[in-house]
């Protein structure tokens, strides 16, 4: 019996705005017990709770502050917008979401 229902898998995907086909959901559901079992190996390390989590490879001291005078060259708006699928004037167009 799997620890993961189809609804749980769909919920994880939905939170990322990803839809799954029936086959994709089935594939992921079948693998998820193995994945969770594998992840449990992380919790088998002695004294793990006492260790400070590490988010980056090594300590990086960032001390440089950018100067307010350091201004990049302006990029023309038509170039910035050229990859957008729909444009109105200087704006990227999306469906209306309020009133």
């Amino acid at each position: 019996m799997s620890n993961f229902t189809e609804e749980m898998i769909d919920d994880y995907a939905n939170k990322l705005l990803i839809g799954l086909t029936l086959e994709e959901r089935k594939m992921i559901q079948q693998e998820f017990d193995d994945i969770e079992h594998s992840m449990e190996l992380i919790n088998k390390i002695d004294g793990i709770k006492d260790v400070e989590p590490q988010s980056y490879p090594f300590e990086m001291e960032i001390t440089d502050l950018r100067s307010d005078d350091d201004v990049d060259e302006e990029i023309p708006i038509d170039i910035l917008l050229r990859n957008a699928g729909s444009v109105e004037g200087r704006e990227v167009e999306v469906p209306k979401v309020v009133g």
Partner: protein
Amino acid sequence: MLEKGIKELHDELKSKKITSDELVKESIKACHDIQEKTNSFVTIIDDATGTEVTDELLSGIPYGIKDIFSTKDILSTGSSNTLNNYVPFFDATCVANLKKHGAVGVAKTVLDELGMGGTGTTGHTGIVHNPWDLERQTAGSSAGSAASVAAGVYPYALGSDTGDSVRKPAGYCGIVGYKPTYGMISRYGMFQFASSLDTVGVLSRSVEDAAIAVDGMKGLDKHDMTTWDSSNIHLYESLNKDVKGKKLFYIKEICDIENYKNPSEELKEHLNNFKDTIKKCESIGISVEGVSIDRNLLNALYPTYMVIYGAEASSNMANLTGISFGPRGEGSTPDEMIKDHRTKGFSPLIKRRFVIGSFVLQRENQEKFFLNAKRVRRLIVNKMNSLFENYDGMLCPVGTGPAKYLDDSKNNHDKDTVVLEEILQIGNFGGYPSITIPNGFINNLPVGVNITGKVKDDVNVLNIAYALEDVMDYKNQIAREVK
């Protein structure tokens, strides 16, 4: 001509035996010649032209660019349908730096979708075939870069490495794959996968060429706060074979054959070959010792990687909406459009990775999986750093043998070999400089060995690789199937 290294090509250009234009045209033709067999390229830049040949070693010489890097006015897809029409208005910093040195990009190479795979089989333009045997994988994700460099169409190509994506393909394709210290090269303009692990790297056919290429790319970048000042490091100029007295270690639990219950013949040969490489190290004055690492810590390596990349990747993909760039999805609200874009655009395997990320970031799982994975990361990095106090680096076989079959039913799936298969991820956990060089053949296919050293000690790591390469016979080799 293209089978030569950067220094030789530079000399040919300077002596006017060939022009940069001719060299670039020759490279573009060679790209077309191998495309049908290997499927290495998303885009071949047919209108690329030569540049002025200066005293810069890279000037006038063609190279390949993994399609994970933004290139100004040139399609940059990440090998994903979510970016299949994206044409950036800027160059990634590493590409811009190479351009300043006069290098000429001639092709954008196929990768596993957005860098999230290790087989070279998940790019939106299809499977990449290994030029040593077209039925075999190249590994990934820098699949097309590895295949094309091994095929000899240019001396080097850009890669990126989040787990082993430069160093594993190098092993499978019989070439050099160098991942410098984290932050040595700016990641600006590279589609992000897992930002605390992502590193720009290079694939080449010699250590010398890898050093020259990274010299041309590295440096501080105000667009990437993780870059650090490496202006006092000159990789190419520092190359020498003076390695007498250097000390390396290997991990006994994964390198000694007696630790495997039912090893395959390939694994036996691979580890025997590794022992021969140790003897070669000793022949040039490098001592190599076996050390033990807690088995529980080693077993936690891959799950830790899986949790960290999943969490970071699922956060990083937030900008893939299909609204500002990428093909638009259908829907009556922005959320519906984004969901349609992602649902249609991502392949099943990458969706699986994102779902893992979503799972570990659920409130109830954050402590148990995400934070504990980051704690294991610290323990692994602490262990490696303590070893690097006494050793110049770690020596390790790359993978469990030669390239795997594209038909996965022909591959060996021994769970005992998972740690060996994934061990190079240590290099990303600690941001260590790490380089793969070819060290032999098994069943007529190349295999590799890796050297990983301490943070910012790239010169030392490259020198060990440079000296070792010199006492083996695999420098500058070109893949047989397409030769």
